[in-house]
């Protein structure tokens, strides 16, 4: 966030907007793309987002009976993966700030017949509405970059994590190889056009491209997690750093 003479502002893609407006603007973006969000993800990532999500799941070390928060869970990809692992003794909570996304995710999950251990809630990641020390694992995938105050979100996640639990942050990041970075930049220029074709809303995808560029790089995010209180923080670069999975642990009491 930057201090403006008039009021505090933050970035919304490349634009500077008042802090209070960002959540609404992000909400409009996801409301617009919710119905075809998964299809667009497949187009943008050439299908690899499914593998990356599975890889993230493997890093979650979930076991039967655990409770897990799928934060910014959107269309429910992760909840669908978590549910069979934690089993009926465990609990999955799909939380998202955007009602349209939660509706799509909830309908999709119910259509698959999974009703036993998944619940849904509208929640702002900056001030999660749960008791402290509630979850063995919190996962936020492709969501943190849209949060206005990332520090507050990490602090809130830390508070909700049980001692001994872990938080996983899957997010676009900075390619390690400059050549790959240039190729990726060239490819991502196409996303707004693809978004216009598929969802009829190129502007939302222009925001997605810009928000990825504005997101902190691997080391910066790792430091932010350390500052939030997490221990033994590490990250795994995926596909040469196009995405990164950060893991932070909450120390046992």
């Amino acid at each position, binding site marked *: 966030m930057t201090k403006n003479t008039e009021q505090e502002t933050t970035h919304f893609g490349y634009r500077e907007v008042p802090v209070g407006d960002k959540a609404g603007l992000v909400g409009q973006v996801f409301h617009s793309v919710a119905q075809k969000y998964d299809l667009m993800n497949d187009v943008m990532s050439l299908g*690899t987002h*499914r*593998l*990356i999500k*599975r*890889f993230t*799941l*493997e890093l979650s*070390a979930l*076991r*039967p*009976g655990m409770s897990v928060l799928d934060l910014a869970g959107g269309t429910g990809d992760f909840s669908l993966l978590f549910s*069979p*692992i934690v*089993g*009926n*003794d465990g609990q999955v909570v799909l939380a998202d700030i955007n009602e349209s996304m939660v509706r799509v995710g909830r309908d999709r999950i119910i259509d698959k017949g999974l009703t036993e251990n998944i619940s849904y809630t509208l929640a702002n990641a900056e001030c999660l509405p749960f008791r402290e020390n509630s979850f063995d694992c919190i996962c936020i995938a492709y969501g943190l970059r849209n949060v206005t105050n990332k520090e507050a979100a990490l602090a809130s996640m830390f508070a909700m994590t049980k001692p001994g639990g872990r938080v996983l942050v899957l997010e676009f990041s900075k390619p390690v190889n400059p050549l790959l970075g240039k190729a990726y930049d060239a490819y991502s220029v196409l996303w707004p056009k693809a978004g216009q074709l598929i969802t009829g809303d190129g502007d939302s995808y222009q925001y997605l491209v810009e928000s990825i560029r504005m997101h902190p790089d691997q080391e910066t995010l790792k430091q932010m997690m350390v500052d939030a209180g997490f221990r033994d923080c590490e990250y*795994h*670069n*995926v*596909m*040469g750093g196009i995405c990164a999975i950060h893991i932070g642990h909450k120390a046992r009491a």
Partner: protein
Amino acid sequence: MNAGLFHTAFLAAAETFLNGLIALDPAMPSKLAPLAGKTLRVECTVPPASFNMLVCQKSILLMQGEADTATATVQGSAATLLGMLAGNDPAAQRNNRTAISGDTAFLQSLQDVLANLDVDWEYQLSKVIGDIPTQAVSDSLAGTREFARQSAANMRDDLDAWLHEEKKLFPDASQLETFYKAVDRLRLRVDRLEARTNRLFPGQH
């Protein structure tokens, strides 16, 4: 793509195949349910790889994971492990080609479940092409199977007759019987001769 992602991709493909098979057996959820929540750690020596098989209510998940969460661990080469898990090679454990630790009863149960996968192919086919065509295909297959069985039996009989009667390459059963009786008679006479020789010349054998 990094190595971890390749491993994940391979496991995802194997899991899709395995769960596709599991979904074809309507009784599978009730067979898997008692094992739900348990994990089999598979450590393959050739090629070197390891993964966890987590049993869920209706499926089995294959994931890279930590060894300490496993209910049981099994080690061996890929071929031995596949044979053992499919229940085709129960001798593998006795022959020390696999090493097992942890809850072996769970491993045995999982083996039983996977080996007794009962897929009703006719039902699956009927969902795609309908009941009447499935019946026609099924009858046709049964007819073909019966024809093949009879043809094989006829071929065996004809070959037998040709080798014994036409080419005289092998003796027939009655000739063999006569030969065996002659051998038996000879053996008895040799035994008697030996006994007589021993009586006539004691201490010389």
